[in-house]
C-alpha cells in the first residue's frame, strides 16, 4: 500500500493546469508548424503563423494561450494500492485548479447555475473522471476545454450495421458545421462504442493522445487517416480562411459495445487543444 497525501494531488493539479494553459503541447505545436510550411493560401498561412507566435509569447510570459481558459476536464488514473490521506480527492483537484487559475490570472468561466437563474461564475467545480487501475501509481491529466469548440461537438447512435462511410460523413458534417468560430485547424477526438456517455468520455480522452503517435490498431490508424483526408476536403482551413488544413489530426478510441448499437461521439477541439499529464 502506498500512502499519498492528498495535498500532493492538489499541487500537481495546480502545476499541470498552469502548464496546460500556457505551454502549447509539443505535438500540437509541431503539427501547426508543419501545416504552416505546407499551407499555400496567404490568409490561412498568416493565421497559422499567428498561432505559432502566440504560443511562443504565451510560454515565454506565462500568459494564457487563449483567453478562454476553459472548463478543465481532469482525468485521474488512480492505482488501487494508493491510500489517499488528508482529504477528499475531488476537493484537492478543485483546490489545485483554483490556485492555478487565481495565481495566473486565468478566467473564471464556470457558471454554477446552468439555467442562469443566478450569475455566479467561479473557477470550479471542474469535470473529474477517476479510473481505478492496478498498482500504486497516480496519473493525472488536466485538459482545459474551450467552449467555442465544445459547443459544436456531437454524438450519434448509429445502427450496428452502419457503414464506415456513414460514420465518416457524420464526422465531416460535424467539422463543416463547426465552422470558423470553433478555431480550426481542429483536433478531432472520436469515441466509438461503450454506452452513449462512455463514447463521449473516450472522445475526450482521444484529445489527450499525442497526435504524432500512430494508433496501435492498424484498422483504426487507417480510419483516422481516411477521416482526416475527408475532413480536409471541405477546405474550411485555418480560422475559416480556406486552405488544406481544416484538421491537424483525428484520434479514435474504441470500447466494446452492445450488439444493438454503435455510439459515435465527436469532441471537436480547436488549434489550442490543451492538456498536461504527469505520473507520480
Amino acid at each position, binding site marked *: 500500500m502506498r500512502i499519498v497525501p492528498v495535498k500532493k494531488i492538489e499541487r500537481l493539479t495546480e502545476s499541470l493546469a498552469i502548464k496546460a494553459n500556457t505551454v502549447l503541447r509539443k505535438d500540437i505545436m509541431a503539427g501547426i508548424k508543419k501545416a504552416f510550411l505546407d499551407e499555400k493560401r496567404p490568409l490561412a498561412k498568416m493565421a497559422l503563423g499567428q498561432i505559432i507566435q502566440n504560443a511562443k509569447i*504565451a510560454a515565454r*510570459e506565462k500568459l494564457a494561450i487563449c483567453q478562454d481558459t476553459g472548463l478543465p476536464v481532469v482525468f485521474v488514473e488512480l492505482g488501487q494500492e494508493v491510500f489517499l490521506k488528508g482529504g477528499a480527492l475531488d476537493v484537492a483537484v478543485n483546490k489545485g485548479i483554483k490556485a492555478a487559475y487565481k495565481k495566473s*490570472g486565468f478566467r473564471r468561466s464556470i457558471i454554477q447555475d446552468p439555467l442562469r437563474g443566478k450569475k455566479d461564475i467561479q473557477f470550479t467545480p471542474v469535470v473529474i473522471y477517476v479510473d481505478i487501475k492496478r498498482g500504486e501509481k497516480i496519473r493525472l491529466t488536466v485538459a482545459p476545454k474551450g467552449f467555442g469548440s465544445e459547443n459544436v461537438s456531437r454524438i450519434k447512435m448509429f445502427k450496428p450495421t452502419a457503414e464506415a462511410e456513414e460514420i465518416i460523413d457524420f464526422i465531416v458534417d460535424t467539422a463543416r458545421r463547426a465552422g470558423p468560430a470553433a478555431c480550426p485547424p481542429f483536433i478531432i477526438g472520436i469515441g466509438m462504442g461503450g454506452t452513449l456517455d462512455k463514447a463521449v468520455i473516450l472522445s475526450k480522452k482521444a484529445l489527450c493522445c499525442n497526435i504524432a503517435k500512430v494508433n496501435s490498431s492498424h484498422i483504426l490508424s487507417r480510419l483516422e487517416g481516411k477521416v482526416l483526408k475527408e475532413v480536409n476536403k471541405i477546405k474550411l482551413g485555418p*480560422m475559416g480562411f480556406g486552405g488544406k488544413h481544416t484538421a491537424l489530426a483525428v484520434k479514435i478510441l474504441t470500447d466494446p459495445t452492445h450488439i444493438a448499437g454503435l455510439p459515435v461521439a465527436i469532441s471537436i477541439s480547436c488549434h489550442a487543444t490543451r492538456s498536461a499529464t504527469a505520473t507520480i
Partner: protein
Amino acid sequence: MKEIKITTPLTKEVIRQLKVGDVVLITGRLFTARDLAHKLLFSSLKKKKKLPFNLKGQIIYYTGPTNTPKGKTIGSCGPTTSSRMDKFTPSLLKAGLAATMGKGQRGQEVTSAIKKFKAIYLVAPGGCGAYLSKRVKKANVIKYRELGPEAIFYLEVENFPAVVAIDSRGKSIYN
C-alpha cells in the same frame, strides 16, 4: 501579404475602400463588449438612454480578457464567437457603430445591416490572446466592472491585426 493601416474613428471613406479579405492593422481605440454588455447596451439604446461611449466611427471588439498580470496592460484577449451578439448588432450599426470585430460567421440580418449602414465586420486571430495582448497599449474598464471579463473595456491599440470578413458591400469571406 499587404497590410493596410487604419485608425479610429473609421471614416466612411476608409470603410468604403476596404474590401473583403483585406488585412488591416488597427491603431486607435477599441471598445470591448460581449454577451451581457450587449444586452445592456441594447436596452439603453431602446430606452434612448446615453451609452457609456460614443459609437460613431468606433469598433466594438468581442472579447472577455483574462486578468491583467502585474506589469502588463492586459491579459490574454483574443476574440470570442461573434454570432452570439448577432441579435444586438443591427441596432448598434444603425446608431453609428462603424465596425464589429470577433471571430466566425455572422447571420443574414447582420450582413444586411452592414450593407445598409455601410459598416464592416472584422475578424481577429482566434485563440491568439497572448499575441494580441502585445498590441494593446492601454486598457481601462469604463462600464460594468462588476461583470469581470464581461465588462466594457476601452483599449488603445497599435497595429492590432485583423481581416475584413464582411465589407460594406456585404461581401463575406466565408462564402
